[in-house]
């Protein structure tokens, strides 16, 4: 049976920069996918683009692509699918073309997928009755309209298929469902449609995409039973070898570190999943409770089943809006009764600010090492030799948060004996972009495919 090897070399913006190069070099891939966009990445990119219209995409991709150029020259079958386009897929492709040309690879055809960005027509959509209510609270978007910085529909795999059909070798998208980066090339290779006849195959490929979208999380990263023998320092990134009938094998390059086994695949199957019998994507509603896993040799797990239970008539929309400012700083407190002293130091810090007339919309004091990561859930034991004091605040006023960041250093001389760790200067203030998940009728969104 015909099969296609799809490897994912990047699970988020900030992931290991060498992983895509090593995966493409050693993975015998047909497709390399690179996933850069977490929910809040889009708001950060939107603000960048406001300042500079040429920016607003995942710049790491350009560096990675420059280094991939010799591999693209050596492996004529290799194609790349990435959502690095972020808020500016066209800008991303311009930079990508420049980078590959500089490396001597000319004549590459780039697919550009846009239309996910709803900001240009947001008021028209609202006026037409698309109220974009918050999925959980039901509140209409109108209540925060003036603070919205980005609004993107999660597009599906169909535009990726179209770009590949039109000869694109590198497909750059804006916001696309993560699993669709894998569903697209599989559907293109095997001629699957997006109607009822192919729903189970789309669901199976969605499972494959879901399993590899977070990179090393299926090859040993985050695995509960990982130990020194797992060689996470040299962890191999995942490959889904998808067959024409939708069954597939999850594996990784031979000789790389990490582990692929039923435990790693099971853990990742449910990662960030709500109802496993209804995993919603723009392509299909996939049922993960029909998936069967079996060992298929060393670092290889065969995945069968995975059924499609229809499709939705809506796209998910990820909206971000301005929600004030926050900052968090840390100090190390050592010595006997470190926990008590750290807690007192945190209180002193906030008391001093209160004396200066500053209270905050929200504050949080953590004593890390004493069980505060999930406060009250896992009790501390004993008297740790040192702890980390972390204090965080959030407030609508930037100036108040700025003032907060100046209150850590004084504790180095005015606090308890054994206070240290103030080496990185005042903590940075960052703007908060709150998350507003919503849905929109598919008919109100027009995906745009160009091959340039």
């Amino acid at each position, binding site marked *: 049976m015909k099969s296609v090897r799809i490897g994912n070399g990047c699970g988020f913006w900030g992931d290991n920069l060498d992983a895509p190069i090593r995966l493409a070099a050693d993975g015998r891939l047909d497709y390399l996918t690179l996933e850069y966009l977490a929910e809040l990445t889009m708001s950060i990119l939107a603000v960048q683009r406001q300042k500079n219209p040429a920016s607003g995409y995942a710049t790491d991709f350009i560096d990675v692509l420059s280094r991939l150029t010799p591999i693209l020259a050596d492996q004529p079958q290799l194609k790349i699918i990435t959502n690095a386009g972020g808020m500016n897929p066209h800008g991303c492709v311009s930079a990508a073309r420049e980078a590959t040309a500089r490396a001597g690879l000319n004549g590459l055809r780039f697919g550009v997928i846009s239309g996910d960005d709803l900001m240009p027509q947001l008021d028209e959509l609202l006026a037409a009755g698309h109220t974009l209510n918050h999925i959980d609270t039901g509140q209409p978007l109108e209540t925060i309209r003036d603070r919205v910085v980005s609004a993107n529909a999660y597009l599906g795999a169909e535009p990726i298929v179209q770009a590949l059909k039109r000869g694109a070798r590198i497909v750059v998208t804006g916001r696309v469902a993560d699993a669709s980066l894998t569903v697209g090339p599989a559907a293109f290779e095997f001629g699957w449609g997006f109607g009822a006849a192919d729903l189970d195959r789309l669901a199976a490929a969605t499972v494959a995409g879901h399993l590899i979208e977070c990179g090393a999380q299926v090859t040993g990263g*985050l695995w509960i039973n990982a130990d020194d023998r797992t060689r996470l320092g040299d962890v191999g990134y995942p490959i889904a070898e998808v067959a024409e009938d939708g069954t597939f094998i999850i594996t990784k390059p031979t000789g790389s570190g990490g582990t692929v086994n039923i435990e790693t695949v099971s*853990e990742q199957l449910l990662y960030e999943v709500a*109802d496993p019998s209804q995993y919603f994507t723009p392509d299909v509603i996939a049922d993960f409770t029909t998936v069967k896993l079996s060992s298929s040799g060393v670092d290889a797990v065969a995945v069968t089943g995975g059924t499609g239970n229809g499709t939705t008539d809506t796209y998910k929309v990820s909206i971000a809006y301005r929600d004030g400012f*926050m900052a968090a700083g840390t100090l190390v407190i050592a010595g006997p009764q470190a926990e008590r002293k750290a807690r007192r130091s945190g209180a002193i810090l906030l008391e001093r600010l209160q004396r200066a007339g500053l209270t905050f919309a929200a504050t949080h004091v953590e004593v890390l090492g004493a069980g505060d990561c999930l406060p009250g*859930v896992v009790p501390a034991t004993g008297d740790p030799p040192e702890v980390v004091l972390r204090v*965080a605040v959030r407030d609508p006023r930037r100036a108040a948060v700025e003032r907060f960041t100046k209150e850590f250093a004084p504790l180095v001389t005015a606090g308890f004996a054994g206070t240290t760790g103030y080496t990185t200067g005042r903590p940075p203030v960052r703007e908060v972009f709150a998350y507003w998940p919503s849905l929109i009728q598919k008919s109100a969104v027009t995906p745009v495919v160009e091959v340039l």
Partner: protein
Amino acid sequence: MPIVSLSTLAHGRSGDKGNHANVAVIAYTDAGYAWLNDHLTAERVQSYFAPLGLTGVERFAVPNIRAWNFLLYDVLAGGASRSLRSDTQGKTLAVALLRMPIEVPEELLAQVAPASA
């Protein structure tokens, strides 16, 4: 009855869904999965994480991989974008839940742990 930590019977992983989080608990054996069906209820998980101020817990069965998926509502104090915690995304919820003390009958102990352990 002997008391062991949940990690004796199961492994798992957690992640965020906005201000909610999910914790997958995957049993090592069929016997362990059957035991957890009755002893790792949504109510018990909710009470374990009560200090975090969550508003509810829903449990989904995933028998094909011997798993329970727990959806913890409003557990992240604002979620990735605005929570003031270190763990904004609930990454540590699974390792915390696997510390839960759980009673297992003596005669069942040998049947719930992974074969290799």
